[in-house]
């Protein structure tokens, strides 16, 4: 809370500084020794985006301490239009010379980002790619293919290549499709594994609870569940517990939420045996890489993929961040 408050007052101060700079009409490039990094991210609406906001503010704190003269300005938006407005503010008021953006929507933000790049701002795009890659300098992404592939491989192996699986999907987006396609492509090699159904549960605990209840009503034999997200896994586990079903051997979530990682470390639920990383921490890495490269005047590689890896009981402690909200 305190850190939020102080960051708010600091932001106020920053905008005041920005306004003063504007009044002096100092061209942005004249501050050659000063790097100002703008960060545009979605606001905290669920566990994962809550983690994004947390790690972005963490990066601001660490980097500003390590590099005097560096400024990091974090803006959160509730939707694509709002995010586009923030980009304009960042460039005209805050005079940023580098931008790290987690775009709300690929298509809607391509033009606004391209305009910033045309003004000489260095642009790093995170997670959701733009529809036109010439609008960006660098792209840092989580590994959605591995996010779907690793659980499929794990489930196939755990079931010995034979059994019934149900899946949850998030919200209809390109990223969700990528994960589902990757999951299906692995199952193609395991004809003994049957995917009974995959319904949308919106990365939401309550929706996942309902969908799982209905799966349990509908299918007398389910061997494993791909919940595809740790929030959804919470709802799935509750529904299984309520129905007192003993046929399910494995529930595979994803993204390594701290509660699930804790469960995995403690071995407190036999259904939770593994997880796959897709940490919101990649926003921290992206901001750090961008800021440090710009301070030195270097460029980032065009594409950086932050790999998603299998998390097991043995490796869980490396993925446990008790202070993060996610």
């Amino acid at each position, binding site marked *: 809370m305190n850190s939020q408050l102080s960051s708010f007052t600091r932001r106020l101060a920053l905008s005041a500084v920005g306004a003063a700079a504007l009044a002096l009409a100092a061209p942005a490039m004249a501050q050659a020794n000063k790097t100002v990094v703008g960060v545009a991210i979605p606001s905290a*609406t669920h566990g994962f985006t809550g983690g994004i*906001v947390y790690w972005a503010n963490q990066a601001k704190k660490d980097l500003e301490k390590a590099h005097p003269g560096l400024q990091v300005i974090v803006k959160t938006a509730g939707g694509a239009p709002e995010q586009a407005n923030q980009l304009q503010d960042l460039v005209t008021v805050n005079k940023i010379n580098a931008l790290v953006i987690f775009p709300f929507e690929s298509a809607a933000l391509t033009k606004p980002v391209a305009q910033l790049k045309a003004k000489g701002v260095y642009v790093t795009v995170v997670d959701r790619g733009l529809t036109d890659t010439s609008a960006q300098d660098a792209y840092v992404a989580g590994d959605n293919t591995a996010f779907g592939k690793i659980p499929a491989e794990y489930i196939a192996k755990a079931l010995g290549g034979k059994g019934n699986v149900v899946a949850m999907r998030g919200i209809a987006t390109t990223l969700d499709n990528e994960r589902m396609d990757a999951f299906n492509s692995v199952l193609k090699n395991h004809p003994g594994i049957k995917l009974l159904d995959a319904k949308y549960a919106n990365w939401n605990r309550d929706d996942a*609870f*309902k969908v799982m209840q*209905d799966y349990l009503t509908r299918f007398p034999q389910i061997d494993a569940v791909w919940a595809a997200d740790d929030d959804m896994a919470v709802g799935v586990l509750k529904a299984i517990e309520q129905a007192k079903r003993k046929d399910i051997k494995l529930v595979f979530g994803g993204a390594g939420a701290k*509660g699930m990682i804790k469960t995995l470390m403690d071995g407190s639920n036999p259904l939770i045996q593994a997880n796959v990383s897709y940490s919101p921490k990649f926003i921290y890495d992206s901001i750090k890489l961008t800021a440090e490269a710009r301070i030195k005047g270097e460029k980032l590689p065009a594409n950086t993929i932050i790999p998603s890896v299998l998390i097991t009981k043995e490796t869980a402690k490396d993925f446990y961040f008790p202070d993060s909200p996610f």
Partner: protein
Amino acid sequence: MPQAPVNVPAENAAAPQAGGSRHAAATAAGATGVSAWWGKLHGLGPVIGLVLLCIAGTLLNSNFATYDNVMNVLTRTAFIGIIAVGMCFVIISGGIDLSVGSMAALIAGSVILFMNAMAPVLGSPMAAVVVGMLLAVVLGAVFGLVHGLLITKGRIEPFIVTLGTLGIFRAYLTYFSNGGAITLENDLSDLYSPVYYANLLGVPIPVWVFLLVAVIGGVILNRTAYGRYVQAIGSNEQVAQYAAVDVHKMKILTYMLLGVCVGIATLLYVPRLGSASPTTGLLWELEAIAAVIVGGTVLKGGAGSITGTVVGAILLSVISNILNLTSIISVYLNAAVQGFVIIAVAFMQRGKR
């Protein structure tokens, strides 16, 4: 199938009823046999819709009609259904409340934080849970009071007031949870979970509570002076004012009643997952309003039916249940199916405009 009391026409309505309602159809002077019959029929729209849906569901998947599935659906409906009963009063009085989903989320978060903090202080987890449950209802009433005061004394449109609080409530929950989840501690969760998961005579507790709220709501609406005043205010506020109805007080009471319903729904909801997050209760307001309107209450107020509201709420959850039990329809079209059914049911029970 819970049977709420049938909506009996109020005999001494304090004000002339608006046209297009069942009351008007049934009590209008010189109503012909045909229009009286029609009045009865078009109130049955949601019931006919529900019966048809249940038949379709059973044909598509024989598991639909199992006892467990029916109980699952009714338990799920309980939250929206209880809120919809309160919403029915607000809409009949000519108002609206868009904030109920966010309100439920904020109450859930506050109650969890309260229970976690108070268990060591009170020295008894049980006491913390019971006081926390009471807090849910009190918070609901307080939020409703604030709405009522802003709408009546502050003379702001209910749509605007509650649109504002929709954002305020959810933002505060997000702030308290740092964008993550607020989770009830394990020992409290174990103690509290029977409120959602336990059965009484083979029927889950939330279903009993839902039934009780619906029956009480029906009695208040059709058998008390307050219920008649609410209908009078909704059909013509000026006339109600001349007839010496304390309009402000009645409206404030109506928003408080809805707040209490949200509190009750939330105290049943919290033990289900034992957590609240920024996605809790998302779009509940639209589901509750839809349940009320599908159930035959007119959006502009004046008359409505608690029975219809209950059937409307069940109907909405049955649609998504059937969609989960089949793979015939593309998952991308789920929302479209719900839309078609809602419009079809509303069409079946439209009044004479």
